[in-house]
């Protein structure tokens, strides 16, 4: 009696949609941990190295003892700037979403998990973190921010995805040497700070090149990757290892094709000292000075009504300054992997 094709409308699946994962892990805050401050700008002391001076202490009879020179300090400053984003949620959005024919209608399979308010909040927070990640990675990956001995750029045969052996079949004749490079960085940081680096940051996509590197395979032929902290033992690094995978869409246009996913951390490897907790006489590579808002948080989210626009506005703010406070506490291995590695 009826054409079957007229009796059917394709439903929208409610348990499947295509898109990028909305949330990423961000690593800038690990390398330059947050230090809450109660002022927009301020100073912090940088002590001299008088504590490690050798002072003549021999006293001859009848003479006055040598006096130890007191410590001095200089100051460095921070200046926070506000970063703030807002997004409107219009009344029409809710009205259309829940109307007959709206995507929240059971006819279309339910609400499709669209929640304008929650999604708006997540979006502004995500955008703030993306920008911060960009700023931190730009700072950390800039060779001008390191002392002369604290950065090396690998090229050609020394890059970690290059397994070429100068004597075929002899793994230890590769020019590339991930463990050697990491250990050199550790020694460099230790010699300047008397502390071993406690954070090693490696691009996620480079991990397999390290695990399968001939020198590492040879070094650990009888070694099981299933043992705890296997990777730490493989690389010789005893601190925390983070795998970097954060990225952004560089097309700056959500409709442009092809999409240009750009990794914040490129093919560089970083190791150094980070301290999450503020303290005195610290030697930590970098800090994110974040001013505390009156509500006691460093990233408050506010919501208010704009009646003329028939919209609720959602805004998140973050007032911070990124500062490399001890450049010798970091070590940068640039282009540890070749351009063609991934």
């Amino acid at each position: 009696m009826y054409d079957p094709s007229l009796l059917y409308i394709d439903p929208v699946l409610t348990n499947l949609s295509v898109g990028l994962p909305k949330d990423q892990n961000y690593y800038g805050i690990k390398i330059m941990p947050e230090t809450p401050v109660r002022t927009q700008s301020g100073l912090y002391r940088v002590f001299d190295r008088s504590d490690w001076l050798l002072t003549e202490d021999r006293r001859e009879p009848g003479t006055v003892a040598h006096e130890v020179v007191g410590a001095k300090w200089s100051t460095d400053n921070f200046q926070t700037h506000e970063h703030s984003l807002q997004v409107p949620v219009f009344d029409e959005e809710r009205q259309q979403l829940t109307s007959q024919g709206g995507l929240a209608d059971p006819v279309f399979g339910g609400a499709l998990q669209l929640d304008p308010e929650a999604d708006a909040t997540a979006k502004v927070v995500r955008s703030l973190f993306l920008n911060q990640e960009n700023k931190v990675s730009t700072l950390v990956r800039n060779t001008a921010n390191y002392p002369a001995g604290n950065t090396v750029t690998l090229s050609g045969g020394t890059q970690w995805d290059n397994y070429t052996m100068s004597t075929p079949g002899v793994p230890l004749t590769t020019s590339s040497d991930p463990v050697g490079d990491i250990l050199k960085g550790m020694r460099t940081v230790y010699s300047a700070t008397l502390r071993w680096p406690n954070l090693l940051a490696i691009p996620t996509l480079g991990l397999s090149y390290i695990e399968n590197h001939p020198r590492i395979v040879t070094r650990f032929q009888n070694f099981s990757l299933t043992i705890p902290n296997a990777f730490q033992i493989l690389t010789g690094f005893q601190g925390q290892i983070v795998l970097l995978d954060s990225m952004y869409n560089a097309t700056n246009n959500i409709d442009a094709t092809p999409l240009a996913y750009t990794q914040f951390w490129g093919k560089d490897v970083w190791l150094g000292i980070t301290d999450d907790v503020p303290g005195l006489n610290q030697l930590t590579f970098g800090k994110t000075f974040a001013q505390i808002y009156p509500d006691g948080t460093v990233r408050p989210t506010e919501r208010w009504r704009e009646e003329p626009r028939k919209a609720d506005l959602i805004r998140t703010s973050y007032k911070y300054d990124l500062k490399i406070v001890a450049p010798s506490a970091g070590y940068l291995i640039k282009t540890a992997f070749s351009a063609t590695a991934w």
Partner: protein
Amino acid sequence: MANTYYAWSNINTGEVTINVGKEVSQADLDISDSEWDDMIAQGVVRESKYPEGVGATESPSGFLREKLLKAYEGELDDADLKELRTSGVFPELGVEEVPAEAAPAAPKASTAAKS
């Protein structure tokens, strides 16, 4: 004429090691055009000289920032300011202008008109 570049990072190719501050060229490193361009883009090699007098535990950007502060306090002479401008570390200072005497001589139109 090719530009002169200086290493702002130690560079290790396996065959060649270049230390920070040394003059370096693509031929020295024997690398492809794309690799060389990437090094320029990432600031590993720069046209500006690595600043002299940077301490062993100090970064060049920190060293130059200190100089910049002194500049604001009026403690720097013209030569120091020129070094800051040409370093490329502080683009907000603008680029160093080519001195008039170094610029190519322009044709003297007035002379041609007379003759």
